[in-house]
């Protein structure tokens, strides 16, 4: 006993903590492992296997939460760079190549900042309002079809869900504005409420004609209905609806020229005036996630969702070829690919290096080889990507969907760089006097056209 005591006495404070923990881990660890492998694991597997819907839901939620952050980062970076380009500035260029990590670092900065709650603010509401705003923005991702089969939940009332959840964000903005105990915030919250509630009506009415045409509320089915050539996209059958949707969605997402709720030259920062730290970060992220969502919705509803503008298979059929189909089964290929994997990189690296070596006689051979290797990687990644694009329909769908969505994100950024802000009465007048009648007209014309065509 004295030996143990003496040894214990020699231990530093850190040792006195670590060594008992070590024993604990050595004893408890195996027991937990055995228990998990024999009892908990199979039970969990059974549970998950029995409820695939829940598993799918949890995975989808995790996916959209994880996806929304980089999407917001990319859009923030894009906005900084594109507006800088339009303003003849350079924009962020310090962190990463061409400042690509700027928004990431800005996000980290927001995390480290003080979370300040002003005196007189309603603490609970003040804290939870940004969460509500952010969650409503992220939750709308759940029904957006990113590609064939790439949809969180294929709700048959997807569009209704979208408008319901999207409309909830105004509650968050109103709460944020009210709870801040600041008159600018209050004005911003009230403006947001008035604006979003007004524009919700033309926004919803503008897609009713489309719903009549598609016969479904499921975004997935609407996307499938637009397959084929780009002339099958709903924008050509519902041009007025697409225009109204575009304008109303801009207002819905509080983007310039309808950014009444955070008009910086009038009411400082609107509902976000008193926010700092990560709570401001939530509001900020939600704004950019919203930009992506309205772009994605425009693409899904009116611009063919994940469908490519050109139907390659129909062209091939016209020429007389069979549709391209890649079936990759590595097992059926034998030993050949293994051998190729060993030889092809080396050979191609050398082949790609030769022009670099010959083009400049002063360049050492190793530099040429490095350049050749980089070029080989580029080519290989490109080929793999092409293979994936041809082989997996969801990959092709994702490429087209993201491409089109970011095109519209660019349009929104462009609008922000060029337009001044409209006034609140002009904004409301535009919604009620122009957009709403136009949306109703669109609905009536569509309905009449459907009846005439069917009879």
């Amino acid at each position, binding site marked *: 006993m004295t030996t143990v005591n003496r040894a214990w006495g020699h231990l530093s404070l850190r040792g006195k903590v670590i060594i008992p923990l070590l024993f604990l881990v050595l004893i408890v660890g195996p027991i937990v492992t055995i228990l998990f492998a024999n009892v908990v694991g199979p039970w969990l597997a059974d549970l998950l296997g029995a409820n695939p819907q829940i598993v799918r839901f949890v995975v989808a939620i995790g996916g959209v939460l994880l996806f929304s952050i980089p999407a917001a980062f990319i859009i923030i970076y894009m906005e900084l760079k594109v*507006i800088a380009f*339009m*303003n*003849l*500035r350079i924009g962020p260029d310090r962190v990463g190549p061409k400042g690509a990590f700027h928004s990431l670092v800005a996000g980290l900065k927001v995390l480290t900042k003080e979370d300040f709650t002003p*005196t*007189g603010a309603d603490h609970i509401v003040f804290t939870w309002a940004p969460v509500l705003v952010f969650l409503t923005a992220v939750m709308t991702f759940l029904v957006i079809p990113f590609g064939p089969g790439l949809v969180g939940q294929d709700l048959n009332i997807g569009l209704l869900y979208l408008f319901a959840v999207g409309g909830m964000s105004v509650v968050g903005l109103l709460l944020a504005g009210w709870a801040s105990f600041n*008159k*600018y915030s*209050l*004005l911003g919250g009230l*403006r947001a409420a008035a604006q979003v509630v007004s524009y919700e009506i033309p926004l919803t009415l503008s897609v009713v004609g489309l719903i009549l045409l598609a016969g479904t509320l499921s975004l997935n089915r609407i996307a499938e209905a637009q397959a084929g050539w780009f002339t099958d996209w709903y924008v050509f059958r519902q041009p007025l609806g697409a225009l109204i949707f575009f304008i109303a969605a801009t207002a819905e997402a509080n983007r*310039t*020229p309808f*950014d009444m709720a955070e*008009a*910086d*030259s*009038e*009411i*400082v920062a609107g509902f976000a005036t008193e926010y700092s730290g990560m709570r401001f970060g939530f509001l900020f992220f939600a704004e950019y996630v919203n930009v992506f969502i309205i772009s994605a919705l425009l693409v899904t509803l009116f611009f063919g969702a994940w469908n490519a503008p050109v139907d390659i298979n129909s062209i091939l059929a016209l020429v007389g070829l069979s549709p391209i189909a890649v079936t990759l089964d590595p097992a059926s290929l034998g030993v050949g690919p293994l051998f190729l994997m060993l030889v092809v990189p080396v050979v191609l690296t050398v082949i790609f290096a030769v022009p670099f070596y010959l083009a400049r006689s002063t360049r050492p051979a190793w530099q040429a080889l490095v350049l050749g290797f980089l070029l080989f990687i580029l080519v290989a990644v490109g080929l793999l990507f092409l293979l994936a694009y041809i082989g997996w329909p969801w990959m092709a769908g994702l490429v087209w969907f993201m491409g089109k969505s970011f095109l519209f994100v660019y349009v929104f950024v462009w609008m*922000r*760089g*060029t*337009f*001044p*802000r*409209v*006034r*609140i*009465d*002009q904004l409301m007048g535009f919604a009620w006097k122009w957009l709403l009648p136009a949306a109703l007209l669109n609905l009536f014309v569509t309905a009449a056209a459907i009846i005439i065509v069917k009879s």
Partner: protein
Amino acid sequence: MTASGTPHQHPSLDDPRIMLDDQIGQFEAVPPYPPRTEREAEFYSLRDGEMFVNMGPQHPSTHGVLRVVLKLNGEQVVDLDPVLGYLHRGVEKLCENSDYHHIISQIDPLEYVSSLFMEWAPVMAFEKLLDVEVPRRAEYIRVLTGELLRVSSHVLYQGWMALDLGGLAPILYSFIERDEIVEMLAAVTGQRMLFNYFRIGGVNGDLNHEFMSRLGDWMSRAAKQHEANIGLLNENEIFVRRMRDIGRLDGATALRMGTSGPNLRASGVPFDVRRAHPYSVYPELEFDIPTRGGNGGGDSLDRYLLRLDEVSQSIRIIDQCLHNMPDGPIMARLPRLLRPRPGRAWAAVEAPRGLFGTYVISDGTDQPFRMKIHDPSFVNLQLVGLLMKNNLLADTMAVMASLDPVMGGIDK
């Protein structure tokens, strides 16, 4: 105004009784002392549904440290009360305690956007006191640099106007022009903002090669660039709709309120100090006095467009200056220590914001006995009370930015 003397009648966000236990009241719009005038008592009593909003002194679009207490009914501005003095430096007193040469640098930062005009008026007043004849080349240089600065000020105004209405891009295009001008003035004066260039009896340095080459570059494309900048905004439907019929000011009211400069000319009154009370070499130069806003008076859009018209006229004047510039000395011969005869002198110039004048009383010593500064921004700012009332909150920006106040001159 209740009998008890408190300005609050109804429970509202402004009511100290609903405040928590901390001293939030110190950030209130309502002053802590009982009302001193009837107007103050009337203004600081709220009716049902009204609230105060303290716009400024730190606010993105009050052009400095202007504080305006707005009485809002929803989004509508019922009444407002500008509160000045956040940039007060006591320039007039500083000038009375500096000798005549020092005054130029004391008065420079008044209107920091166009500081040469702030030097011009007192220098002219002192020259009247001293009976100095300024060399013609110096006069031409003054006109040349002054008109350059007028262009830069008006171009910057264009960008600020757009920024206050939420447009991000034009301000940066404006700053390209302003930067060009400021750099070329820095080449001749040695400073980018507070030039300290005019001297009693002339100017500090002759035009040098860098200035002339920069000016030549700029002049070769100035008119074209001005047209391009006009195209940025003037046909923008949102911008025009925000500005039209906002803050309409008729000529008689403008004169009654003592308005001067572009704001007056935008209301249809062709008053320009350069023509009405000619000074320097302006009688020899050809330029028009553009006016806007016919019978109904001028609105914010007129005030905006008028400044763009003036830029073209200034470019015309610069062109003539370059063609007519005589050779000769740039300074009159004067003693180091100036002791003008006892007397009074008034001199006024047409600054980009209007009539900028100084009234100097000399008692025969090397410091003025009294120096009164008449700043156009201060007088023009009076108009906000007339023009902003019963507009929307967003229109306060369209009105205030269109009046183009600079707080340095207002608070002195």
